[in-house]
């Protein structure tokens, strides 16, 4: 298994590169970069969703798929498991991570709070992509109250 830092470094450079090249510093331009990151994560998530559950048995319901995300996906990508999963049983799930590896190197507290969303966009896309392959359409957003703890909110879209 490759060293976890390889992905962290690559991810940091991806975000830095997108922001360095962004010719439009207004909120509109920011949104495009966030959207690009999220879509990258989406395509990676689609492939991961095909490869990771390869030998596991079929999922019987949504909760199983979310538990798979929290355990196996997090373990494969971040080498740890999430710290919590909450649901309101109406299709909204919150994934909590108190020590998010992509944010842990940045700060421990309120510093750099405005920069944090950039580093979470790729992971939001990753979750959305994996759920998409598993047959669940969703919308994923992230929120940070204090680095490095963060919350990912997954809202299942029912047709």
């Amino acid at each position, binding site marked *: 298994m490759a060293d976890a830092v390889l992905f962290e470094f690559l991810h940091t450079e991806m975000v830095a590169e997108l922001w360095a090249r962004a010719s439009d510093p207004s909120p509109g331009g920011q949104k495009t970069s966030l959207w690009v990151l999220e879509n990258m994560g989406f395509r990676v998530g689609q*492939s991961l969703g*095909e490869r990771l559950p*390869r030998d596991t048995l079929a999922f*019987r319901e949504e909760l199983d798929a979310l538990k798979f995300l929290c355990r196996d996906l997090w373990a494969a990508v971040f080498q740890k498991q999430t710290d919590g999963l909450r649901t309101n049983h109406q299709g909204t799930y919150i994934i909590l991570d108190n020590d998010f590896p992509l944010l842990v190197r940045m700060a421990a507290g309120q510093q750099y709070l405005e920069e944090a969303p950039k580093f979470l966009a790729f992971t939001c896309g990753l979750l959305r992509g994996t759920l998409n392959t598993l*047959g669940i359409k969703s919308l994923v957003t992230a929120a940070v109250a204090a680095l490095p703890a963060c919350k990912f909110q997954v809202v299942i879209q029912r047709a």
Partner: protein
Amino acid sequence: MAVCIAVIAKENYPLYIRSVPTENELKFHYMVHTSLDVVDEKISALGKALVDQRELYLGLLYPTEDHKVYGYVTNSKVKFVMVVDSSNTALRDNEIRSMFRKLHNSYTDVMCNPFYNPGDRIHSRAFDNMVTAMMIQVC
């Protein structure tokens, strides 16, 4: 030694279908199409029953007089259907399972290819070669 192999997407359209004796191709297409109903039945039936977890390999879907149809469904609801010749009685369950595992592995590789858009027909030559190796040798 399969006679026809098909990969069917979640929305039940074919991503890849290939049969060996190319003159009865239409008949095999039709067989694969009818077997989809059986696959759906198996997936939904086991979901309601009190089975703890469902296996990916579905087993024999239905036998006809000279062909047997086997099915396998992945976690992403992509189905693999394989038609084998009934006269080839030497084929055991284990061999069919290993053929499906190889198919699943090759399909995963196709998915991870950045030039492949999920939902398109599969044009990968590596996948083609793997399938050719599994097909029956018609002389």
